């Protein structure tokens, strides 16, 4: 079988849900209205019952298309990330692939067995012991009892719950519970693995273990993984391609970095080196001054699509001041992956705080990329007048750090979120 074969092929997939609505209960509802409403409801339900359509409770019925004409293909051995806002249709897509619910329109072809991990600990019964739950959960996920018996020791070792095997699971800590659940699922041997945000639970060690296992499953085992997550760092690290869903439709399919960019609202194309901040999502509306746009520049002043690992990234922020401000300040912060704040610097660190009249202004600063890893970092910009909030924007993705010089070696599996030159001296005999 050649590597060009698609193991999953999705063609014009659509899924519709019917929603019922209760009409607003007005305060002075006449008995006549109540009767009329109920009779209409019964007639509608009976008609649906007879014609074989779905019966929906409520006064009026509405259509909701969770997925609209979704098309994509997955190659064997590929790790595909699926990202999107809440409600974009990611879980619905996984449910259809896992055959839990049926599509309304469209067609999917799958060549291989699917193991679906839509929830950690599916079927776990709190009264049963860890040992019993391993057999129960394994059977539900599709393993035979012989297979579970064979892998039993591996599973227990992975979960690190050997001492507690004969205790009912209801006594487990949440960490143990989740480790045991994932341990069983990690030892499935179906060709395709579908994982839905299961990394959202558990502590850092657990998440590292999960990611490690998923990577080894795909690299060593040649298995295909479909991975839904909100953790952009994990997506970037593990996936070769990323599918971005937006309100049920495919918004982007391609490079992880570009997809993440599009997800964060940067216009869906990495060629935009200037980010328009006027409509950017904010938690509070701007007061007194607002951020207009931010541009990324290479050291020579040209727009930066990507930036080299030892270059300085110029960041140019355009702002508009609406009312006269005294002691104006702009602060920037760099945030890594899922929200770890790396560092924060402010204009006031190097300049006295200015008083500004209404108008448009530009501030520029430079981030030395030498200190950053080749991963995703996000920029946060915050403006204030003395201690009063003016404007605050988060989640602006920095241009991708690309190593154009092949001789430089950057190790990215190292610990830490930054890189600091520690000045290694040459080794000597003691």
């Amino acid at each position: 079988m050649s590597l060009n074969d698609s193991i999953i092929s999705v063609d014009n997939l659509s899924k519709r849900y019917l929603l019922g609505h209760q009409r607003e209960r007005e305060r002075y509802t006449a008995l006549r209205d109540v009767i009329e409403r109920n009779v209409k409801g019964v007639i509608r339900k009976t008609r649906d019952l007879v014609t074989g359509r779905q019966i929906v409770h409520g006064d009026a019925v509405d259509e909701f298309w969770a997925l609209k004409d979704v098309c994509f293909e997955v190659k064997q051995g590929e790790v595909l990330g699926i990202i999107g806002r809440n409600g974009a249709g990611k879980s619905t897509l996984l449910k259809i692939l896992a055959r839990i619910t049926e599509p309304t329109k469209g067609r999917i072809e799958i060549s291989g067995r699917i193991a679906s991990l839509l929830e950690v600990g599916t079927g776990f019964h709190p009264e049963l012991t860890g040992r019993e739950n391993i057999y129960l959960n394994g059977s539900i996920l599709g393993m035979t009892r012989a297979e579970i018996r064979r892998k039993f020791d591996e599973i227990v070792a992975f979960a690190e719950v050997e001492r507690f095997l004969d205790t009912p699971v209801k006594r487990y800590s949440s960490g143990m519970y989740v480790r045991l659940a994932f341990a069983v699922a990690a030892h499935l041997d179906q060709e395709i693995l579908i994982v839905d945000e299961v990394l959202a639970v558990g502590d850092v060690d657990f998440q590292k273990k999960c990611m490690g296992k998923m990577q080894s499953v795909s690299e060593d085992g040649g298995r295909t993984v479909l991975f839904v997550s909100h953790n952009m760092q994990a997506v970037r690290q593990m996936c070769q391609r990323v599918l971005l869903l937006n309100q049920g439709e495919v918004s982007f399919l391609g490079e992880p970095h570009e997809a993440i960019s599009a997800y964060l609202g940067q216009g869906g194309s990495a060629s935009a080196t200037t980010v328009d901040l006027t409509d950017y999502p904010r938690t509070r509306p701007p007061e007194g001054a607002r951020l207009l746009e931010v541009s990324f520049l290479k050291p020579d002043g040209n727009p930066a699509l990507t930036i080299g690992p030892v270059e300085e990234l110029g960041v140019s922020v355009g702002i508009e001041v609406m009312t006269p401000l005294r002691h104006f300040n702009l602060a920037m912060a760099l945030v890594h992956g899922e929200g770890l704040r790396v560092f924060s610097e402010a204009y006031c660190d190097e300049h006295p705080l200015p008083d500004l009249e209404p108008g448009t202004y530009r501030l520029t600063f430079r981030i030395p990329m030498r200190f950053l890893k080749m991963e995703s970092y996000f920029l946060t910009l915050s403006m204030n007048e003395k201690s009063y909030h003016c404007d605050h924007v988060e989640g602006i993705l920095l241009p991708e750090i690309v190593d154009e010089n092949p001789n430089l070696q950057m190790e990215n599996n190292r610990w830490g979120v930054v890189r600091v030159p520690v000045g290694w001296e040459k080794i000597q005999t003691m």
Partner: protein
Amino acid sequence: MKKHTLIIEAGRAETHYWRDLWRYRELFYVLAWRDVTVRYKQTVIGILWALLRPFLTMVVFTVVFGKLAELPSVGSAPYPLMVFAGMLPWAFFSSALSESSNSLIGNANLISKVYFPRLIVPTAAVVTSFIDFLISFLILVGMMVWYRFLPGWQILLLPGFIVLAFLASLGPGLWITAMNVKFRDFRYIIPFLVQFGLYISPVGFSSNVVPENWRLLYSLNPMVGVIDGFRWCILGGESPIYIQGFILSFAIVSLFLLLGIRSFRKMERNFADQI
């Protein structure tokens, strides 16, 4: 590595369904084992409850119907044995019906998160009731030893009737289960049906007492054939068997089974959306 292409499409009949049922066959046992094990967790006498319950029921029946009411038995068989032989399949049927009708809703978390042929869930519930049945059967054997009652050759046909009882429970169970997901009304119909059924099935009485002209109508109840058959096997020819009625019951059981499986399969597609 076996490679078969699976096609998922709206309204497409699952061609792999029966093969999947075979592949997931262990789940029948595992789910039933789970339900039985959980029942006796953290109890002191544990699995002994499984024996104690039918035993006490049998004692009560014997005292109430045999000694106090002095109702007539059939042939030379002791009255308690006749009642117990009828009560056994009825208890299996009613418990199987109640358990299976709620099985899908009770396992809603599984249905909405994992794929396996949904037919396994209500069937596993019937298997759970079957395990209780087997334990009660031990009590029956104990009773036969106590009364020094030796069954005739008919006892060899008993496994056939046991299978019939299983199928008779499975058919309506599947149908009601499928209905119950959509219309929770059925949850309230079941206890009523079971209660009513107890009086029109030959549990407390023998089929002899039913007048001739009502016999055929009476045999529309599928459990009539099963219970009479049971009695006939256990009490060895001393209990009469009405052949036409029996064939009618058998037909009804088959009809319900087909109806149950068909409607279940049809509604199965939307379970995850409606549960």
